[in-house]
């Protein structure tokens, strides 16, 4: 089976500084893949490289097509929705306007309206906050909004950058539960970057471990969980 997303030997640079040293990884159709690693290991950079947000070399294929070197907005138009680090909320717009923006590239009005209802179905709290300025939402609500906005693109692949960051455990649980059902109900593949390895390993079927810009270990999450070193350094038990 052809991988939905395939990175081969991807290097990425911040100015003269190389942040990724030839990463290769892949996401299967309908799968959830998590990228683990310490701060500065290159997790966020990997997502940015996929979206053409930084200078890269190597090959990035989405559904068999080379997307390397494309503009960020063109990548989004292919059906890759990026839920960025820090949520990227349009703070001065209302919740609903944020969601409408998610569907900016789509022309199928009726389906957009359906999707809007579906997002409100997943996150009823957003429906309550519909006309509120998004900047005034709580952190958890903004995270939900970010995921909802990504969903509005009707993506085939979602890139999620630390959705648990700075949120209370209860809310994190809730968000991860919804992510699973999005994956199952809507068939959206996911590439998840997480610090909270335990949670991520539970959700994902595949995991890649990054250290200073290199993949040091990969495999399906069940086997990975058994690994001694992973358990002590990332899972903490």
């Amino acid at each position, binding site marked *: 089976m052809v991988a939905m997303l395939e990175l081969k030997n991807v290097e990425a640079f911040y100015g003269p500084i190389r942040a990724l040293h030839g990463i290769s990884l892949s996401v299967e159709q309908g799968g959830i893949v998590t990228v683990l690693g310490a701060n500065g290991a290159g997790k966020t950079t990997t997502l940015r490289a996929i979206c053409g947000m930084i200078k890269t070399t190597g090959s990035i294929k989405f559904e068999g097509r080379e997307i390397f070197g494309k*503009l960020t907005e063109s990548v989004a138009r292919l059906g890759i929705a990026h839920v960025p680090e820090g949520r990227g909320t349009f703070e001065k717009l209302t919740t609903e306007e944020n969601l409408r923006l998610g569907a900016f590239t789509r022309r199928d009005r009726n389906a957009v309206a359906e999707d809007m209802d579906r997002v409100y179905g997943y996150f009823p709290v957003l429906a309550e906050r519909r006309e509120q300025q998004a900047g005034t939402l709580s952190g958890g609500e903004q995270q939900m909004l970010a995921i909802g906005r990504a969903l509005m693109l009707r993506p085939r692949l979602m890139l999620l950058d630390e959705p648990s960051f700075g949120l209370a455990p209860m809310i994190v649980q809730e968000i991860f539960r919804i992510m699973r059902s999005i994956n199952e109900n809507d068939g959206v593949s996911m590439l998840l970057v997480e610090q909270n390895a335990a949670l991520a390993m539970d959700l994902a079927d595949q995991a890649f471990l990054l250290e200073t810009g290199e993949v040091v270990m990969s495999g399906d999450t069940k086997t990975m969980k058994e690994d001694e070193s992973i358990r002590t350094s990332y899972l903490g038990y």
Partner: protein
Amino acid sequence: MEIFLQQVLSGLATGAIYASLALALVMIYQTTELINFAQGEMAMFSTYIAWALINAGMPYWAAFFLTIGISFVGGMAIERIIIRPVEKAPVLALVIVFIGLLVIFNSLAGWLWTYTIKEFPSPFPVGSPGGNTYIGFHQLGMIGVTLLVLLFLYLFFRFAPLGLALRAVAQNPVSSRLVGVRVGWMLALGWGLAAAVGAVAGMMVAPRLFLDPNMMGGVLLYAFAAALLGGTTSPLGAVIGGFTLGVLENLAGTYIPFIGTELKLAFALGIIILVLLVRPQGLLGKKIVARV
């Protein structure tokens, strides 16, 4: 009392001039947080285009809408061709480019059409309602058109996806890209809109001020002040700012002998600065309280 009424109405009519250009300023400010100092000269140049079209025999309204179209495309072209290379340069470099544009348009207009003032037709009837001496049909029409443009912009930003995308780019270009908004074209769209709104402003004020290359030079500062007073991100604020400024200036010039007509602008600016000291976001600008 009669002079008071006269000055207020005349102030509103003048305020419409400031408001219409302030609207154009707000268009570019929304997306780039910059005040385009060349906006007035661009509006003046558009008005010359309309004048040339009308002089070539085109009916008024055809020329009116064609000019808006030309200005829109022209504005976008300026962004794509001239502004784009300095998009990432320091703000002041952009300001210098704006100043460059200002002098280019001014000089070009003088060179092409000379500095002799031109009469520009009004689409509204001559005279005034009921023959009153306070406010004529044209001034009323000008105020009406300003409000129409405002309504159009309100609807556009509120309901059109492109309008929404423009606002999004203004706030968060990175996130905008992630949802597939072509940011570069949105900036160009902002310029196109600004040029189009400016063209309307120019064509509305020219019958009052008479068309010459310096027609909008003096208006720019007022429009700038009006936009800030209203809150630079709010089209409604810009319009209210414009009207307020027009009236304020007239009343100060009339009723405060020391200020007189010589310092009325300085006085009006002083008041605005005082307002901004108390309310830095302007009358209608929104202050956002973000939670982390």
